[in-house]
């Protein structure tokens, strides 16, 4: 499979990455090389194989319904680039 520029742009928008004109070409080429490499997987017959979830723990452990985290608003906000009224601030969002 091969990616055209429109697809690369769509993917970039989904991932919230901006690709300038000069970066678009090389990126498209790299992505296509990688995809071509990945396409080797088509050689493998997996029709009878179940997908692997990929951990050595077979079942999810539980936590108890207990409040373990007290108010730590200062720590939550300490690294934030912009804060007002103890909240994170972003450009206006229109719903």
């Amino acid at each position: 499979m091969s990616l055209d520029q429109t697809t690369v742009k769509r993917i970039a928008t989904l991932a919230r990455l901006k690709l300038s004109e000069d970066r678009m070409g090389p990126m498209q080429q790299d992505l296509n090389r990688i995809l071509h490499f990945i396409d080797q997987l088509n050689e493998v017959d997996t029709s009878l194989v179940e997908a692997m979830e990929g951990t050595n723990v077979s079942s999810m452990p539980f936590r108890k319904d207990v409040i373990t985290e007290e108010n730590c608003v200062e720590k939550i906000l300490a690294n934030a680039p912009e804060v007002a009224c103890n909240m994170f601030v972003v450009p206006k969002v229109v719903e």
Partner: protein
Amino acid sequence: MDNQYIYEGASGPWELVVGLEVHAQVISSAKLFSGAATTFGAEPNTQVSFVDAAMPGMLPVINKFCVEQAIKTGFGINAEINLVSIFDRKNYFYADLPAGYQISQYTRPIVGKGYLDIELEDGSVRRIGITRLHLEQDAGKSIHDQHPEKSYIDLNRSGVALMEIVSEPDLRSAEEAAAFVRKLRSIVRCLGTCDGNMDQGSMRIDVNISVRKAGEPFGTRAEIKNVNSIKFLTQAIHYEAERQIVILEEGGEILQETRLFDSARGTTRPMRSKEHAHDYRYFPDPDLPPLILDKAWVEELRKNLPELPDAKKSRFMQDYELSAYDASVLVAEMETASYFEEALKFLKPLNPKAAKLLANWLIGEVFGALNREDKTIEACPVTPPHLSGLINQIQEGIISGKIAKEVFSLMWESEKDAKTLIEEHGLKQVSDDSAILAVIDRVLSKNVTMVQEYKSGKDKLFGFFVGQVMKDMAGKANPELVNKLLKEKLG
């Protein structure tokens, strides 16, 4: 097809197709995947753990009680519980979604197919299919009214457990949709899995609506987001149905889009933030192994379920000979059913219809008075034992039904019991033959002509005599006795 399912358009009738996605906030102390609190209305960002703020390297661990709540709700909606389920990531960027993904369940939800039976006003019952119930995290809250160019983000709700309950597109009217939500709410409240409080956002509804000509395949649907009351649900469906019919009749096409309900105007509009085509890129969350439920635990939860509204309704119908309608009204709200059952404890079983009488009083007088004063049943000034006390007075023939209404008003005002008030106000029914006979004699002697007419065959006048006697005795005469004695007198 029943008429109420049909919208009349210029081109003839249209059928409405509605499916609901109800987001019900799980009652729990801590969040779905973190140990932060879930209390409503806390100061901004004071109930946020590092997990909820999606700090680097933070990992989710599931809250067992939230899982339990989902299982119980699954039983409540007559659904199968999946012993193995998977949590997936739903990826999208949004201001109040700190991780850039929501942990949800996509291909393998914890609860599979189920159904709800809804009762319609005409007493008929419709079975509405439920596709699934899954657990997921709530997002935070964006606040838009604090600054002209900025939005503020509060993550207190980020990570709170939600159950998303998805119906099949089986609903055919706004009324059915409303009945479905009411039924679901009564179930989750009965189970204690969600408080059903729509004003606080504990239950939020997304509505999928399309219209079609009868017999045709489903039309393109629009999704209306975040409808937060049953009234708005009805409004949104009516508005959206008409909007779509107008477009289709003018030869237009319905866009598959997400719309927002504007409660101030009663209209819907496209959501700006959903203009981008979405591609959520679901995949199993690699931080979470499969959720595997212990069969014995699930069975134990099932055994310990409280009595659900449908079971309660059947029991009321069977044990107390209530009509389907009365029973469903009594079980619709847990508090009403509790009031009824509490009152039953004080009711003397003097009459096979005693419980029926109690139900009538509760649905008629009590509900009427509560509605007039906009009170909930928990705040009812007439307590369950007092109401049964009143019914007992009727059953014992101490007062008539008519006088009882007067006594009820006094009880409502004074919060005193019926017996006391009957004595205080001298409302006791007269059951003394001679007293009644004296009045009968007086009435008959005053109306000689009418007595003649009666005797010559005008039977209808009997009621007139009864009325005159009752009136003379200020309604306190025992009506049965009046009837009996009058009959004897008039031969």
